[in-house]
Every structure is written in structure tokens, then in C-alpha cells.
């Protein structure tokens, strides 16, 4: 079980997406997942070993690291990727349900089980709202936990058993900040794509509904 599993999952979702949805999948694969695996993971690999405090008091470094990094950036990033990708599965399940129904009744109930209309449209819209929601929640979490998206070089710590205010140095702060900015930028791009897709679908189907009613009235 690794990121390849998520990749396979999302490839399945791609079949039932709109054009914008496919662009979203491409952005998630290439600019988020691949960057995470190929570059970002290694930056945070030894973050605990390389975190150094100007003190010899045993336990002080542990306590200070835990205070400043309750959840590591890289773990939050991984959680964000997983949470943001999974609402799309709801659409896959709905399509599978439709196909099962058709098999069970042994007749064609839908024009195409994968076509985004009726109940599947609602499911698709819900998945888009959930995706956007998760993106925003994680961005806010990052912002609140780490006081913005900055990674300082030096943090001052005075928690027991540190005897006084001690200087602690974070490793590779500039590189971490660059990749955090990259994470924020790609998250915002994905939010924009999701909102764009949402607007497009709502607009398209409102026009369809309106035209149907208009034609009915005229008849």
C-alpha cells in the first residue's frame, strides 16, 4: 500500500469526470503527488535528528520539537492529499451502483451509467464541495498550527525541562518554506479548478432545465 494505490484510484475517477475534473486529476498527480514523493519527503526526512537546541539538558530538545511541531508539515501534507482525493470515490460508487441496478433489472435504466445527470449530478456536486472544503480546512490548519506559512530558522523554547529560554534551530527552513509555498499555490489552484467545475456544472444544468421548461410551456 503506497501512493500508487491512490494513483490507481484516481485514474478510475478520471473516466467519469468533466474536462476540468481531468485537469484537476493531472494537477494532483503531477504537481502535488509527484512533487511530494520525488522532492518534499526527503526534505523532512531527518527533521527531528537535525533539530538542534543550544542546550545539553536531556529531554529539552524532545519537548521543544514536540511543542513547535505537533504534527509535521509533511504528515499534514500527506493527509491533505488523501482527504482531498477520496470524495471522488463517491462518484465511482454511485456509477457502480447504477451499473448494478441495470444488471439486476436486466434492462437499460439509464442512457449511460457514467453520464452526469440526475442523482449522479448531485453526487458529483457533493464530491466537488467536499474536495473544496477539505482543501480549505487543511490550508487553515496549516496557517493556524504554524503561524502562517513561514518556517523560522530559530525558535525560542522555555518548556520544562529546559532550564531557561533556549535557542532551537530548525534544519533547512528556507527549503521547507519554498515547498510549503508550492503546496499552498497548488492547493489554491485546485480550489479554483473545483469552484470552476462546480459553476460550470450548475450553469450547464440550469440552462438545460430552463430550456426544457421553456419548450414544455410553448407546447
Amino acid at each position, binding site marked *: 500500500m503506497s501512493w*500508487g494505490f*491512490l*494513483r490507481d484510484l484516481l485514474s478510475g475517477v478520471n473516466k467519469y469526470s468533466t474536462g476540468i475534473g481531468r485537469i484537476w486529476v493531472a494537477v494532483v*498527480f503531477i504537481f502535488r503527488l*509527484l512533487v511530494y514523493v520525488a522532492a518534499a519527503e526527503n526534505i523532512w526526512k531527518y527533521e527531528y535528528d537535525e533539530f538542534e*537546541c543550544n542546550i545539553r539538558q536531556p529531554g529539552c530538545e524532545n519537548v521543544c520539537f514536540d511543542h513547535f511541531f505537533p504534527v509535521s508539515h509533511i504528515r499534514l501534507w500527506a493527509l491533505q492529499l488523501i482527504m482531498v482525493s477520496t470524495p471522488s470515490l463517491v462518484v465511482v460508487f454511485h456509477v457502480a451502483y447504477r451499473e448494478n441496478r441495470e444488471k439486476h433489472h436486466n434492462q437499460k435504466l439509464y442512457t449511460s451509467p457514467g453520464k452526469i445527470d440526475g442523482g449522479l449530478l448531485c453526487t458529483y456536486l457533493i464530491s466537488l464541495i467536499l474536495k473544496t472544503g477539505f482543501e480549505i480546512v487543511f490550508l487553515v490548519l496549516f496557517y493556524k498550527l504554524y503561524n502562517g506559512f513561514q518556517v523560522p530558522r*530559530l525558535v525560542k523554547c522555555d518548556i520544562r525541562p529546559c532550564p531557561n529560554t533556549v*535557542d*532551537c534551530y530548525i*534544519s533547512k527552513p528556507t527549503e521547507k518554506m519554498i515547498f510549503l509555498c508550492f503546496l499552498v499555490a497548488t492547493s489554491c489552484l485546485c480550489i479554483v479548478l473545483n469552484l470552476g467545475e462546480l459553476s460550470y456544472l450548475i450553469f450547464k444544468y440550469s440552462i438545460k432545465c430552463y430550456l426544457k421548461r421553456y419548450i414544455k410551456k410553448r407546447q
Partner: protein
Amino acid sequence: MDWGALHTILGGVNKHSTSIGKIWLTVLFIFRIMILVVAAERVWGDEQDDFICNTLQPGCKNVCYDHFFPISHIRLWALQLIFVSTPALLVAMHVAYRRHEKKRQFRKGDQKCEYKDIEEIRRQRFHIEGSLWWTYTSSIFFRLVFEAVFMYAFYFMYDGFQMPRLMKCSAWPCPNTVDCFVSRPTEKTVFTIFMIAVSSICILLNVAELCYLLTKFFLRRSKKAGNPKHHPNHENKEETKQNEMNELISDSCQNTVIGFSS
């Protein structure tokens, strides 16, 4: 998810590139991505552990390392490779979109649509002209821009392409000017020069492909202007060549889209 996945995604586009494009992709995967994964990552693997400063002051090493290496060579190369690979997907998306439009026309029963069935649309060859030509050329242009930007960023950040053995650091909390020693500087310099050389070759290949496309485009235009009456044989040859290229593009896009969905 790793570089192999990128290879799968781009492999589809490769079938439908020009010959120069295929050479470019081979150079990218063998001389850049493979070298990065198999060799360069090992050389830079212990970079902070073995970055040693001549001081016992805690924190001095961290601060000096961060000052001299704001972003590691390895990460910069990884980002460069990702950015340089992605414009090819623009072409794939464009062809998939065109094919989708044709399928929609066919399903609506449009009389303008000359295809007999969906399979024919799948096999149909789009002409590389108009918007598709622009997409293809733009993708090459973006590749060039990304390559150049990253090479410049590299040069700017590290004051050239050489890795010094010794760096003098006086950032706080280092008590005074402290000597810091980089691990494996010669090996790192060798790999840096290698990667820069291969980047330059890729830039040349992209420029050559761009010139080739432009030349072909202008030649075709001048032929059209020069031959207002089309000879059947000549037209067939032109069409066949264009059809081949378009088939490549459309098939690659089909494969890329399927690759995404499978």
C-alpha cells in the same frame, strides 16, 4: 507514485511526437531522470549530515547550511524535470478534446459529420493545423522557457555551477567567521556539470523541433499558395503524411487519457 508513473503518462504522448520530440523524451528519461534517481540522489543523500562546520556552537551548522543551500540541487532538478515534462500533456488534452467534440457531433446525428461509427472517430486523424499546431508549438515553447528559467535560477542561487569545498559562514549564532566543509564537492560538481550539459542538449533539441515545425508550416503554406489546383497524387501524399502525424497525436492522446483512467 514516482518517476515511473510520469514515464507511463508521457509514454503515450511520445508515440505521437516528431522524431526530435522522441529523442528529447529519451534524453529526458535516460540521461536526466534515471541519472537523478540512480546516482545523484545518493551523492546528495547525506548532504546535511556531512556538512561540517569548525565549531561546537549548536545551531551554527543548521543556519550556515540553510544560508548556503536555500534549496538543494536535487530538489531543484526534480522540480525542473516535473515542470519541463508537463507541457506535453497540453497536446494530449487538446486532441482528447477534439475527439470528444467529434464524438458528440456523431451522437447528435449531425449530418455534417462524415463518420460511420465511433470506431472511425477513434481511428480518425486530426490535422496538425490551426489550434492544434499552436498547442503543440506552445508546449515546446513552454518547455524551453522552463528549462531556461531553472538553469538561470541554478546559476543565480549557487554563483555558477561549481561546488566549493569550503564556505566561510558568520551567520548568528556562529560566534565568528566559521569554516564549513561541504561533503563530496568534486562529485557534486561533476554531476552538476553533467545535468547542466544535458539540460543544454534538451534546450537545443527543443529549439531544433520548433524550427522544424515552423519550417514545415511555412513550406506547406507556400505550397498551398503556389499550387491552387490540387493534383490527386500530390494531395494524397500530403494527406497521408499529415494523417500519419495526426494519427500519432490522436492515438497518443487516446492512450494518455486511457492511461489516466485505467
